[in-house]
């Protein structure tokens, strides 16, 4: 059992529905994006094109963040999901330096909220406990939803089905991987659980 995701770049339209769904579900603070869609310009005229790259934590099989964590706050579950135990995190930020994918965010303690002129809304108040000042946070692959038999919010809302979630050991996922899916930065030898199917 190794949960992961295959992102079909040919299907992704860069709508950011996944970004919004992640923020809604996980109540991340302003400026914090566990799931995001990077947009860049590649090539040069007349062959320039817009490159859309949805990203999230890669929940690596060999996670450097877990290896370097001095307290055991960063850990990997048996199903492959990499999480941060905020009760153990000392905020040394070594995991952020070690992660090759820029997947982690530090909580600098800014609690301005989304609409500072109106103060926090009921949802922000109800989810405030999730944020611990001075600790590191990252995509949890919606582990809580997975434990309830659901799938991650980003995959659930994707209007084109570009984000395909599943057990990477399953035949369906392996078949997709064999279609030419690649992992980001294989040179880092982290063996990410997120694959990309090229256009």
């Amino acid at each position, binding site marked *: 059992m190794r949960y992961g995701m295959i992102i079909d770049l040919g299907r992704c339209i860069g709508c950011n529905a996944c970004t919004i769904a992640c923020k809604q579900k996980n109540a991340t603070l302003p400026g914090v994006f566990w799931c995001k869609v*990077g947009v*860049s*310009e*590649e090539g040069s005229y007349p062959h320039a094109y817009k*490159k859309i790259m949805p*990203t999230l934590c890669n929940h690596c099989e060999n996670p*450097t963040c877990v*290896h*370097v*964590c*001095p*307290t*055991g*706050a960063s850990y990997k579950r048996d199903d492959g999901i990499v999480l941060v135990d905020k*009760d*153990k*995190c*000392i*905020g*040394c*930020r*070594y995991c*952020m*330096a*070690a*992660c*090759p*994918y*820029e997947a982690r*965010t*530090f*909580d*600098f*303690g*800014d609690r301005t909220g989304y609409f500072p002129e109106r103060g926090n809304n009921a949802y922000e108040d109800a989810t405030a406990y999730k944020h*611990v*000042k*001075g*600790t*590191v946070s990252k995509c949890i692959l919606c582990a809580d939803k997975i434990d309830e038999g659901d799938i991650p919010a980003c995959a659930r809302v994707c209007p084109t089905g570009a984000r395909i979630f599943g057990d990477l050991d399953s035949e369906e996922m392996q078949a997709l991987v064999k279609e030419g899916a690649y992992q980001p*930065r294989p040179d*880092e030898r982290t063996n990410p659980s997120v694959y990309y199917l090229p256009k």
Partner: protein
Amino acid sequence: MLANTSKKEKTVLIAAAVLAVVGIGAWVCQLMQGMRVTGLDNTIIWGLAIAVFFAIIAAGAGLLMLCGLSEYLGFMNDTQRTQGIAFSLAAMATGGVLIIMDLGNPAQFLYLIGSFNFTSFTVLDFWFLTLTMVAAVVYLIMARASMSTKAVGTIAAVLGVGLIVVEGILLANNTSHHLWASPMSVVSFLVGAFLGGSALLAVIAPEHKKVFMVALVTSALVTFAEVGTSLVAGTDLARSTMQSVVAGPFAPYFYFQLVIGIVVPFALLVKTNRVVLAALCGVVGLAAEKLWLLCAGETEIWVQMHHIGPLQATQQFSYVPTPVEVAITAGAIGIGVFLFLFIKNALYKTADKSMSDGAAGE
């Protein structure tokens, strides 16, 4: 404690106490408001405090190595050696204080002590620092009791070398940062320890200021080798990273290192006898070197992930420590100075008075 101190030393003691109080106040402010009061962000995650930590540990461990070496080569007398160990101990304790002050959530620090996760170089660093300090305390006690210190001096020096190597690998272990993930990191850290240690040695034993001068030249050569190699023979990413150091947002720290950290102390040593000022410049320059190394290395992942062209990307970052960070760092140094004077006066009442006047006064 104050009964045995000179007027100049009392002045230093009071200044150190004021710095320590201000630093602790700034730290409390950081704890209450979070690290948004620093100049750090999600790309530049380690700044002034970590740079000074590396520099001050290098100086402390470097001096301890020289004390151990003097057991064989005899270039320090007993008084100088005991002062050197005390100085080294205070420097390493300052580093320890500083690293705790830089944690986002220091209340959970006990988890680090109990984790024994030796795949983490932070854990190795903690244990090497602890063991080196314990060895230094034993070394100090035995030296004061006029016991044979060759064995313990050797152990302390070896642990000091280990501490510096671990800190070099702590940085080099981050393989996605090409600036750090190089054999040069450990070499650079060892040269830094030689520089910092010889700077402190020159304060204690000014007759050895030539060792400090050699260390300054060595440090300059290593820095130019590191920068020159990246600029001339590096990949696009390495070149652009180093351009951000020599002609970009981190250039102020690079030129500060060259001028204040190398040229000025060298000139002071050649032209004057202001050894303490030269040593201070040397150690501050070492911190500046670590600062540009940290900042430039930290931007690399962002550059690689965002595909907007390395040069454009590295130019858009900057890091300027906030007054809170400066106060915290100065406070930790104040605690270190206070600790050094405490050890020196509490344990070494018979220390050479003239030297203490000179060192503390300058």
